[in-house]
């Protein structure tokens, strides 16, 4: 076990290293010159050269990368070109909001997805099942920004049940979390349905029925726990998918998270921020996958640890 863990962690670190290098090179080759943006439009050629030297942007690629890496391992993500604030400060101040949003998203997709999946499994073959399955397809196919705008329009603007974007209270969280979680709920409802059907076919369920246990008891104490297990491992993967989704959702709802930060930074080619957010996102993705990999063998002993 320890060997397995160690190897996975090493792999994760190498992957992050690879991500940092590829991103760095991509941003290095871009046609836009960040120094001109920083220097502003009234700068003299001398000022531009000064700034370029100060930021070390006149050094060759590998030297710049080396310096970035050196800072990275110490937790220094550099300073934003346009704001001059430390990237780690900017990210740290916005990360909690994004984490909250992701947690809300996960909660929504599980609540909606698992519930619908169980219901579909129980009414298997009947119209309700068919209807729910089609709904799950629709959920998976809906573009997140349209869903977001739709929810905003109907529930916030027209009905006024929720605030129109923004951050602060629980009611601010509802619409964005639902938007983020809808796609996943489609997947989870179908997985839960399959898993549930599989479990209900098992012998021990038949035994429980034969013993005279009530349906409710069978459902909650025997079927559900076993059906959920394979799904739990998937949650880690979701984190990766969410990292992309938050850019859109935070933009539509004005949620002050790292998605918004990344989007603004890309517009202005504020390279340190783009690097920082990419690294943090990749870090979360790798972490999520790692957790999924660690948890899975425990859940399903049939899967060997390779």
């Amino acid at each position, binding site marked *: 076990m320890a060997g397995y863990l160690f190897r996975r962690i090493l*792999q994760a670190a*190498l*992957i*992050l290293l*690879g*991500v940092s290098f*590829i*991103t760095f090179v*991509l*941003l290095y*080759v*871009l*046609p*836009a010159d960040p120094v001109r943006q920083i220097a502003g439009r009234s700068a003299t050629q001398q000022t531009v050269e000064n700034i370029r030297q100060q930021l070390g942007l006149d050094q060759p690629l590998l030297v710049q990368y080396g310096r970035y890496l050196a800072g990275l391992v110490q937790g220094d993500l550099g300073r934003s070109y346009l704001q001059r604030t430390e990237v780690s400060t900017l990210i740290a101040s916005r990360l909690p909001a994004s984490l909250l949003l992701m947690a809300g998203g996960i909660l929504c997709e599980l609540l909606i997805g698992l519930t619908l999946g169980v219901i579909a499994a129980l009414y298997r073959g009947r119209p309700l099942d068919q209807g729910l399955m*089609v709904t799950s*397809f*629709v959920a*998976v*196919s*809906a*573009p*997140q*920004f*349209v869903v977001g*705008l*739709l929810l905003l*329009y109907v529930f916030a*603007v027209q009905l006024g049940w929720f605030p129109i974007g923004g951050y602060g209270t629980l009611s601010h969280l509802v619409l964005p979390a639902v938007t983020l979680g809808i796609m996943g709920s489609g*997947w989870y409802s*179908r*997985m839960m349905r*399959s898993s549930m*059907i*599989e479990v209900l076919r098992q012998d021990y369920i038949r035994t429980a029925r034969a013993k005279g246990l009530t349906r409710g008891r069978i459902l909650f104490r025997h079927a559900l726990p076993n059906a959920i297990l394979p799904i739990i491992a*998937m949650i880690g*993967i979701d984190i*990766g998918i969410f*990292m*992309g*989704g938050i*850019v*859109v959702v935070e*933009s539509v709802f004005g949620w002050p998270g790292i998605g918004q930060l*990344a*989007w603004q930074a*890309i*517009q202005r080619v504020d390279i340190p921020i*783009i690097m920082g*957010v*990419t690294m943090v*996102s*990749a870090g979360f*993705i*790798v972490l999520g*996958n790692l957790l999924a990999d660690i948890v899975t063998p425990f859940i399903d002993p049939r899967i060997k640890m390779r």
Partner: protein
Amino acid sequence: MVDTAHVPAQAPIAAASVLHRLMRRKLALFGLAIIAVVVGGAIFAPWIVRYAPNEQLFEGLTLQGAPMPPGGEFLMGTDLLGRDLFSRMLYGARTSLIIGVVANGAALTIGTLVGITAGFMRGWVGAILMRFTDLMMAFPALLLAICLAAIFQPSLWIVAMVIALVNWVQTARVVYTETTSLAEREFIAAERTLGASNTRILLRHILPHLVPTLIVWGTLGISVTVLLEATLSFLGVGVQPPTPSWGNIIFENQTYFQAAPWLVFIPGAAILLLALAFNLVGDALRDVLDPTQRGRD
């Protein structure tokens, strides 16, 4: 994406029986119908529409310069520059379909090449390729796509390539798993002892077995690429104006979504239906082509 489409190795199924089984599923039929409508609309657009998609019409705006709602002269209304939305929607279908097919095709090709090579060659070549695949999986896909599209001057083809670069990973993994299990089979060993070259084995024995998987992934993948293209266009880094794409129609008109909701929800519904159609068809294909999954219904 979850729900790995594991199709066990078996003799390639006759196309006719596949089609037959597909037709018996209502949802798949529904999906095919939508696809047919969209493709038809895209191909026959020039003959169907009354106005050119990029023509900014004087009568397309109210006196105060606001867009016109659906009905009357304009079937789906007009946009903020006075252009006919119906026309832009049909021509936008072309964009979505072209990018969907091209990007997905490219992703499929890259993924298959990587997966087959890794699965067949094994050893350190395989290991490196699969680690590289893991690396690409660690990138936040949308962020990477936005970065690339914003960095390089976006055009239809650049957008397609960007999407392909971000999406090939899933295919690679699945193909790799398939190939490794196939390559271990006895009949492959038998072929080798008979003196068959690697290429021959690849082409005549492995590739045909991968076809069902590729078909399923190809279909499901178009749904993903349609959504991704729409999102990139929505963020302003998609196809260049004035070329219409369902996503960039929403992008240009989103601030008006209260005053002119049709400009957001008509293209939004279209994106949803197209992605849904490919999902339904892809899912049905998977059921049809993978017997082990059939019992689950």
